[in-house]
């Protein structure tokens, strides 16, 4: 039996479409965690938070350990706003979940690199790709059709085998 299932049970799909935060009122406290300063989404949120006089702390992307400790100290009612690149967001959400936060208790603005991972139906190799619809597997050479079928465990999209005799679309 392999990898701890906490990994998937508690890992969730990161919504990359959100560009702005929506302030959630009536929370004990808000923690705003930003990878960079002067992000528009964060500035806007800060204005709203200050206007309402809500309790908050703004944290720069500091040491991993410090953030993990901060998360672990929180009481029920703390709400997280996370802004960063996919890599950072993955780290932070993993730490947040470990501390006991759920999807309902955070918002994420994710920006930057538009790359994604693709899982080869034939050999299970995972490679990083851009926005192509079809690619060749770097490991086995099979022609793959990129699908929207996503696995959190593998953090990858599924690449269906494409047959040379067809124009794709019917491997399903």
């Amino acid at each position, binding site marked *: *039996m*392999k*990898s*701890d*299932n906490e*990994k*998937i*049970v508690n890992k969730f799909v990161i919504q990359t479409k959100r560009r702005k935060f929506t302030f959630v009122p009536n929370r004990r406290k808000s923690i705003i965690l930003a990878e960079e300063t002067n992000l528009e989404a964060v500035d806007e949120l800060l204005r709203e938070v200050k206007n309402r006089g809500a309790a908050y702390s703004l944290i720069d992307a500091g040491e991993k350990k410090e953030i993990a400790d901060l998360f672990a100290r929180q009481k029920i009612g703390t709400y997280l706003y996370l802004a960063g690149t996919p890599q950072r967001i993955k780290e932070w959400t993993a730490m947040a979940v470990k501390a006991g936060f759920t999807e309902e208790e955070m918002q994420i603005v994710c920006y930057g690199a538009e790359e994604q991972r693709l*899982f080869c*139906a*034939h*050999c*299970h190799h995972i490679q990083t790709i851009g926005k192509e619809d079809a690619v060749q597997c770097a490991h086995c050479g*099979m022609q793959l059709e990129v*699908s*929207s*079928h*996503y*696995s*959190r*465990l*593998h953090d990858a999209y*599924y690449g*269906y*085998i494409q*047959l040379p*005799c*067809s124009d794709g*679309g*019917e*491997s*399903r």
Partner: protein
Amino acid sequence: MNDALSRFPFPFKKGTYDYYANNSIPLQPPYSIEVTPAYQHEIHLKRRLLNKAHSRCYQSLSHTEEAQWEVVELVLHHLTAAYPKEFLLHKEKDNWTFINQLTGEEERFVFGDAASLPFEPLDFVGRHVQEDLILMMQRDAELFLEAGQLCFPGNWSLVFKLGMTFHEIHEPIPGFFERGAADKIRTFLLHMEAGRPWMRNNWSLTAGNFLDTFPETYHEWGIHRHRVTVDNAGSLIHLRVEVQKLFRLPGTQGILFTIHTHMLPLKQLVRQREWLHRFTQVVTQLPDEIADYKGITPYKQPLFAYLHKQMEGEKEEKNEIRQ
């Protein structure tokens, strides 16, 4: 009807098929397994696949061991209750001896002690049944695919689906979410009770008589989809029916999902004229996106032509009789 035909679980009660309905019905008798005349052949095939490409056919996550033992308990009890001559189980406290007369095997193990088995519990018990066994765990009102032994997949990957929720598993199915089917079926599953098992049929078509249609080997079996002609459709195309059964495990709250796959070449199907009629109606009315999903599109033309010919042939026969 010959024997193979009479035991084939033909899925169409009428000439229409509601793809998005919860077509589950209470399972009677309440057994998770069925032994058919193909037992020896399929067990042999299963074990060959498991030996050749184990990770493709077997996956599990940690924390599933207790539920896997529950599956062992349930499946072995069903085997011995349904087929007492073929399967025997002796228990002395936790020391179990399982005898499979069909394979001539005797398995001794300590129930609950994984080290006393040559494989993980689910992998062990799956080698004695024709069914594929999928274990869904229920955690915080969500269902996750956390273990499975799958040798006869209908073109889906156990490795890739491992860890997925019910909704994530079904993501590739056209229209499944838009019509609210996914939510309704998940709610049904979340509330399923121990002691009240359910069954449903799922159907598809396969070009070629392959049980082991793995997506990993699609380039080998998928090419037959492009080789169908009016003349070979009857022997090449098979109606593939999966009899699926659902059991709530009372101790761990998991759900055992068993899949027994049956294949019937169209040339045998068309001999049952009522089946031919219903099948033709359902297949010709199938929405394009579902036909695409089931992989029928590449041979839709020759298939329809073949069915048309069979129906026509039937008319001619009738006319001849009338004349």
